[in-house]
């Protein structure tokens, strides 16, 4: 397979395809009705809980838990904007395996990445859902097989990062007792490996 830079991407083709995706993506809801119901039910339970003392509230972390390549991950909900269900991805020739492709989110091009290569595993190629993450705006899409739930996790249940994972960078904040990898959103969004120049001139 010849090496091609993103500069050699047929942008006219890509844009046309993104246009078509836009038309297809007129679906307002990004979750299946059943999934939506589960999310709403879970939130209703959360909201119905009597107030915890202030100290206890600060010991809870609200996260979205998602599955990818047989591993559970969690990300604080303040980084999560929305979840797209099976968005169409436009692959980029010659892109790093991390970058699965581009998708369109309300007219903005959004790079979509898969985290598994960062953990030294091959990209699974799976991903029925994309978590749209960012600080204050949609910056990045993360592939996930499924978004399991949004939940509040007591910080007491979190363990320090084992040394084996410490080398993947600062964006693993901790490990839950059940094995879920908790991601550090700010580190993740600031990681140069996950910042792609998708302008016409860019050679990401």
């Amino acid at each position, binding site marked *: 397979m010849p090496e091609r830079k993103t500069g050699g991407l047929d942008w006219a083709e890509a844009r046309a395809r993104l246009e078509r995706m836009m038309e297809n993506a007129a679906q*307002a*809801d*990004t*979750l299946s*009705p059943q999934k*939506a*119901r589960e*999310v*709403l*039910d879970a*939130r*209703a339970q*959360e*909201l*119905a*809980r*009597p*107030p915890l003392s202030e100290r206890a509230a600060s010991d809870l972390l609200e996260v979205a838990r998602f599955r990818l390549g047989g591993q559970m991950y969690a990300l604080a909900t303040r980084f999560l904007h*929305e979840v797209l269900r099976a968005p169409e991805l436009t692959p980029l020739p010659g892109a790093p395996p991390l970058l699965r492709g581009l998708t369109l989110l309300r007219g903005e091009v959004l790079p979509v990445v898969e985290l598994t290569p960062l953990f030294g595993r091959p990209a699974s190629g799976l991903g029925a859902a994309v978590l749209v993450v960012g600080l204050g705006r949609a910056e990045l899409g993360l592939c996930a097989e499924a978004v399991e739930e949004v939940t509040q996790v007591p910080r007491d249940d979190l363990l320090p990062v084992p040394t084996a994972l410490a080398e993947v960078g600062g964006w693993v904040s901790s490990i839950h007792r059940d094995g879920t990898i908790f991601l550090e959103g700010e580190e993740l969004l600031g990681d140069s490996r996950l910042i792609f120049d998708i302008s016409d001139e860019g050679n990401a």
Partner: protein
Amino acid sequence: MTPTPHEVLLFVLEGQRYALPSADVRELARAVSLTPLPHAPDVVEGLLNLRGKLLPVLDLRRRFRLPPRPLSPSDHFIIARAGPRDVGLRVDRAEGLLSLEPGTLDETPRELPGVGYVAGAVKLPDGLVLVHDLRTFLSEAESLALASALTAVPGAS
């Protein structure tokens, strides 16, 4: 002496912006599942359990004659004071607080058929935004029907 600028909470329904006086707003929450409330007026979408307190959630789409849409996880609830009680309002998106410069709020109250009184209209660069007055949001009849429907539910206010 400059009058204190009013503050309003902007929210969106079907792409249209509306506002509420921020003094009436208690809290914002992401949408959650609701419990149906039997015998409640049509405008009541269901009951919300907010940390043990039960509040009626009003469907603004119905009130503003917008096309109905099922509850979605992306919706927001605005918890607000409506006269004698707290209610939840389901909106597509709560946008945030806006401090009004003096002179941007036209306080000529006017009655909109079926919507009750509007506290005023805010002139924003991109158009007019109506500021709703929740005290008159429910009609007398709806308020009574809601009160009696709520009395049947233990723990509701």
